[in-house]
């Protein structure tokens, strides 16, 4: 891009010949690439009902972790995949309209702000990208997805558990059931394409909440305790 090639280098995201976003500083290339890929999936893959949520798997059963930014869903997801869970996605839960199963997109886990050092200190053996500061979402660092999760990218999982996490320092662990109708509305609200799918979106969402138990979950950052609890909840399903 002319003089920008040498001076304050920028990076451009192109979808074939369509350029959906303004260029960003070159240092943000990696996270920008990840956001761009997510944008491609959520805008063009309507064979899935797409929910903004992390999702992990154990024994063929999927645990969906939706959450607003700051709820700690990516942190929790990073911890779980270092604790025997398989990474399906840290950002996009893809529910196949035809089968109702979750289709994996195992890509780097995006950690933001405070959670970067928490995860890096707890799991020092993982691989991390350099931290990129001053992005739209603050500081961002990408964690390499486990090799095992990547090699099993073609293995779908049955959605069984939806947990809405909330990180609260110095709280005691709390778990409370969420009614199916309430879970439906929250998930629809977090979906990228619920309205695009129309009736089919509604039906897929009904299938999803019917196959899942849903909970609100408050935790203080004790990952092992959280993981054990989720294992127990999954065992209780069916």
């Amino acid at each position, binding site marked *: 891009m002319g003089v920008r090639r040498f001076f304050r280098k920028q990076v451009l995201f192109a979808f074939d010949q369509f350029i959906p976003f303004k260029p960003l500083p070159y240092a943000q290339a990696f996270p920008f690439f990840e956001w761009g890929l997510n944008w491609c999936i959520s805008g063009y893959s309507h*064979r899935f009902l797409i929910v903004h949520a992390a999702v992990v798997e154990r024994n063929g059963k999927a645990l969906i972790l939706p959450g607003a930014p700051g709820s700690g869903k990516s942190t929790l997801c990073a911890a779980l995949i270092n604790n025997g869970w398989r990474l399906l996605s840290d950002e996009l839960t893809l529910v196949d309209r035809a089968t109702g199963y979750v289709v994996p997109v195992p890509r780097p886990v995006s950690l933001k702000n405070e959670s970067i050092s928490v995860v890096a200190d707890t799991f020092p053996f993982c691989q991390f990208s350099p931290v990129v500061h001053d992005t739209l979402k603050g500081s961002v660092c990408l964690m390499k997805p486990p090799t095992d999760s990547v090699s099993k990218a073609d293995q779908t999982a049955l959605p069984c558990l939806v947990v809405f996490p909330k990180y609260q320092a110095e709280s005691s662990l709390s778990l409370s059931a969420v009614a199916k109708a309430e879970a439906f509305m929250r998930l629809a609200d977090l979906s990228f394409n619920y309205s695009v799918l129309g009736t089919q979106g509604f039906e897929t969402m009904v299938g999803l909440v019917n196959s899942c138990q849903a909970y609100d979950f408050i935790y203080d950052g004790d990952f092992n305790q959280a993981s054990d609890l989720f294992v127990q909840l999954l065992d209780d399903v069916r």
Partner: protein
Amino acid sequence: MMPDLLNEYLMIKAKDSIDSNSDWELLLRQARSAGVLSRLAFFWKKFRLFNPPQHFSYHLESAETYWLSQKRIVNWELYNLSQVFKLLNIRLILLKGTAYSASGLNAGMGRVFSDIDILVPKYQLKTVKDALKWHGWLPESMDNYDRRYYERWMHELPPLRHIKRGTSLDIHHNILPQTCNLYPDAELLLKAAVKITDTDYWVLAPEDMVLHSASHLFWGGEFENGLRDLSDIDLLLREFSGNDPGFWDNLHNRAEMLGLGKPLFYALRYATKILGTPIPDSAIEASTIYAGRGKNRVMDYLFLQALKPHHRSCADSLTGFARWLLFLRSHWLKMPLHILVPHLIRKAWFRLADNTKKT
């Protein structure tokens, strides 16, 4: 590399399957950039023209899903508009993609569009605009020069946007600008409009619908969706001529009456050349009276370039230049010099001033 891959797939005929994945990918890219992916979905599912592999059909179905969602939105807008028009006792006449879609024509299947286009008698423009304001349709912000320009010279009002739903509405009082070298009598179009059965919506008569599409494409000067628009014409011609044996004669007579023979000549010529539309020799023959004197080879070169899929795999070093020449031609056709020159000078000056401000 097969640069004409998409053209091949927009032809209504059965195809041999592609066996290389990279060609399927190329077709996907060309179809997406030409805005016809959802139309291909319809050619696959309804016409059974080809058998896509699963990884390709996923994209077709996704595009179809998106198109259906857009159709729901448009249907809802049309319902709301029809309520306003009922109160005013004015016919709600739909144009272009909106019309194809609402009449259930093949040209409407998988046809994506971003604005709703309607036709209103010129003397009722103000009534309609004022009434729509109470229902949330407001003009987009525009400087006074542009607004006056629209009102004085164009064939449509400045676009309206719904303040809550964000949808965009173009209200036309004719199908070509008032300054254009071809300016059909809108009265004739309005008089011949037909009601879509079991709805409150009206559309142009079949012949007028084709002539509008042809004028829009060959007098418009913008070819980003050119191939899609030509495919519209192909589908309209096939369907209307199949329904009515007198269609070709009526089309010819109507073009004569509205003074739109030349765009019709181009439409028939390039629909046959590019998409193999089955047009009887007599109809082609009849339209040649409108052909320009001896410059068909130049126009062929320009239009065949401009109507390629808007994708870099289809462009050669002169494609952009050909499109630019046709863009200039459209201005030449649509505006007499005493309006065009001051307009371009003003636009150029403001663009320059704007750029200086930015740097």
